[in-house]
């Protein structure tokens, strides 16, 4: 929001001095914390938000959360009352200014320091803002209660509608269901002839409806990009300060039995994952299931032996590169099949004998690509969340 102009900032710095000087005298009981915090977020100094947040959460937790929630849902209400709150809302960033310390300290410190900004009134007008807020809080509470009531009613109605609908749907597995039509018949009866895959599901997701599956792989890719985006910043911080790199992350769990068991199980689970992927067109399974098994094995090895061990064969950068390469191969293969299919050109890829490992045309390489994408996504997300903390 940036209410603070240059002039305002000067007065605030001096005010913050005042707050930090007086902080021990001010009692820690807080009556109306919520509003100010929410306004504080709007200010220019976002950098301080999270430090301040800890302090508030330590006390009056419920009040704070509920009212803040009501603020969000009734954002327009907030606007009306912004004026009387201006002084109050100025306090937040100002009081936090002195707390700019390394993160580790900040976590413990604000519990003692945070109350003052909440209660501390402007030196000039001592009681006014508080009484204003008393009314406001009552109002917000009423709105929030009615909002909750309406939300509950809506939720119950939605649930009822869904239950009734599901009850009216055709019974599962009956011969005269609408789902038993020419679509499923062709998938089952001509599937082997059309796609060459003994596993009909693989034929459906990687040949009949392969574009959807490509979309699903891209969903995973998108999710990975967004998570990398969110967490990448702390990676640099880690390299400098090693904040997120705990001993457990680096060298795994201390427990010896766990290490031994995982050491025995790991090769088997990896191998099984690879088996599921490359037999995707022959037996139940395929890229998604096999990829999950491989990804889980990688995560397991990271858990047990830590980063020092896993980084020899799986790093986040490496995984993202493999994922990108797999996606590009997938897109290339799919482009070929779409282009030939849509323009009536005969595809030159042989379907092979159904049942042999090198059969089913493109399904075999596509399964491998999907498996790579899935396993790399799983491992990347896991290591992003464990190694790099959100700052």
């Amino acid at each position, binding site marked *: 929001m940036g209410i603070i102009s240059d002039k305002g900032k000067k007065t605030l710095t001096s005010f913050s001095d005042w707050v930090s000087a007086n902080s021990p005298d001010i009692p820690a009981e807080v009556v109306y914390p919520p509003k100010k915090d929410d306004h504080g977020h709007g200010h220019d100094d976002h950098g301080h938000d999270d430090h301040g947040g800890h302090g508030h959460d330590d006390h009056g937790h419920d009040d704070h959360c509920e009212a803040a929630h009501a603020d969000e849902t009734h954002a327009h209400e907030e606007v009306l009352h912004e004026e009387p709150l201006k002084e109050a809302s100025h306090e937040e960033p100002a009081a936090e200014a002195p707390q700019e310390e390394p993160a580790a300290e900040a976590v413990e410190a604000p519990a003692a320091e945070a109350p003052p900004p909440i209660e501390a009134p402007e030196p000039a007008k001592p009681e006014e803002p508080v009484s204003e807020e008393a009314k406001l809080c009552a109002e917000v509470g009423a709105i929030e209660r009615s909002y909750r009531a309406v939300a509950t009613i809506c939720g119950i109605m939605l649930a009822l509608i869904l239950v009734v609908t599901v009850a009216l749907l055709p019974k599962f597995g009956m011969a005269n269901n609408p789902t038993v039509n020419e679509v499923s018949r062709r998938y089952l009866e001509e599937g082997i002839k059309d796609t060459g895959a003994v596993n009909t599901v693989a034929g459906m997701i990687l040949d009949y409806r392969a574009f*959807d599956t490509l979309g699903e792989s891209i969903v995973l890719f998108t999710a990975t990009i*967004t998570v990398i985006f969110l967490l990448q910043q702390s990676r640099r911080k880690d390299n400098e300060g090693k904040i997120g790199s705990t001993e457990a992350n680096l060298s795994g769990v201390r427990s010896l039995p766990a290490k031994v068991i995982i050491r025995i199980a790991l090769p088997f689970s990896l191998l099984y994952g690879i088996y599921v992927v490359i037999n995707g067109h022959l037996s139940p399974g395929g890229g998604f299931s096999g990829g999950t098994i491989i990804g889980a094995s990688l995560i397991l090895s990271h858990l047990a032996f830590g980063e020092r061990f896993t980084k020899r064969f799986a790093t986040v950068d490496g995984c993202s590169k493999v994922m990108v390469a797999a996606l590009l191969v997938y897109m290339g293969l799919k482009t070929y099949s779409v282009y030939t299919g849509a323009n009536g050109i005969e595809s030159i890829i042989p379907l092979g004998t159904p049942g042999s490992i090198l059969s089913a045309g493109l399904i075999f390489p596509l399964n491998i690509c999907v498996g790579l994408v899935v396993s790399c996504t799983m491992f990347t997300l896991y290591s992003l969340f464990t190694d790099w903390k959100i700052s």
Partner: protein
Amino acid sequence: MNNIPFITILLAMVGSVIVLLLGKKEKTAYLLMQFIFAVVAALSFVLIPYFLKNGGTITYTLGHFPSPWGNELRFGLMESVLAFAFSAILFLSVAAGKKGVLEDVKSCKQHCYYSLLLLLLLSLLALIYTNDIFTAYVFIEINTLASCGIVMVKESGETLKATIKYLIISLMASGLFLISIAIMYAITGHLLIPALSETVKTLVSSGDYRWPLLATAILITVSMGVKSAMFPFHLWLPDAHGTATTASSSILSGVVVKGYIILLIKIYYRVFGIEVIRSMGILNIVFAMGIAGMIIGSVMAMREKNLKRMIAYSSVAQIGYIYAGIGVGTWAALAAALFHMVVHAFTKPLLFSSAGGLIEASGHSKLIADMKGAGRRNKLAGLGFLVGTCSMIGVPLFGGFTSKVYLALNAGGKMYIFLIALAISSCLNAMYYLLVALRIFSKPSPDEDLYADEKGSASNYAFVISLFAAINIALGVGGILVYDMLIKGVEIL
């Protein structure tokens, strides 16, 4: 010719992956992304004269298996116009907001941002062209994740808060859409739209599964309504659109919410058939929600003191116009709604980009109160804002006027209600937009003139803003051409 939509989809897809690979070379990544936007726009534009001449639609099989078995794309005049408009808006919005992106997004992450933008383009193209509701769902997921990503790029407390809110509400809507697809599949056994609509027709005439069908229609309306900020579900919009970086705000309100509206229109007209939807009473509800959104969105915008949030609330009102147009339920009104969508899609990015310039010219404060004289300091942004204002209010010769006229003329039996709401909403629009316009052009007194030396303008910014303004006026003067195309396009939906 018939390969073009797939090629554009493929370009966006491959581009998003390659841009990510470029890593540290942000400039190359930016240029590649803009190049792909431009190529996609050009290719989509090529389709327009083709369909104008030949008419009809093309169904494109994605793979070797036709309609009830494999995925398909289907496109005609309307789809090509929209694909062109959307890719052009993406191109222009990013060019206009480039400075903001460079400031707000850390340089080591910019390639991720560009990759997300290409994924957004990919999902929008797929939503426009798809002939399969499950493909639509898959690309809705991509769209949701990518748009949440571009909201949070600024990484400040308020954007993260807005992102979480947006993500949760959006995912709930995705879930509802998935449930409705599941119900639909259970009662019809199809996912591709042509086969689906055949089965729905027989179901309607035989009267089987009436309640599940109604529930599906309601769930789809609600889920798309949530995603596109239809009136009672708009609460996420001001936060997400008001806090993000300028380019993201432009794109989110310019194109992202529109993609879902197009999908909803497709489902109404092509899956259910508009008469079925009308007999279910859903059209009237959509119309009522549109009218309510028109007025309440404007009222909320009036109460807003933050410029970007004000513009975001005004989007709620404009989406209300679109839904009111859809709620009338005739071809002409639908075309008018689509035309308004195109106008709004070109106007909102102009407003957001100009607002970005104005905010920059007033010491990065988003409060309207601090903007006094900002339009004098950054003349271009001021002028751009003025053009956008005129278009949103509906001053003759600007795009908004033409689209509102078409909406009003085609409102049919609901004309009186629509006209009254239109009058109220336009007056409210004028009240808040003109106040800002007056404030940014009024001369600040010397002691108020805190940011006299903050100009804030870049060379491509000037070009883009004037292009946006020119397109707005062109849509106002020559709107009949676009409207005609859209009417031809929707009649063969």
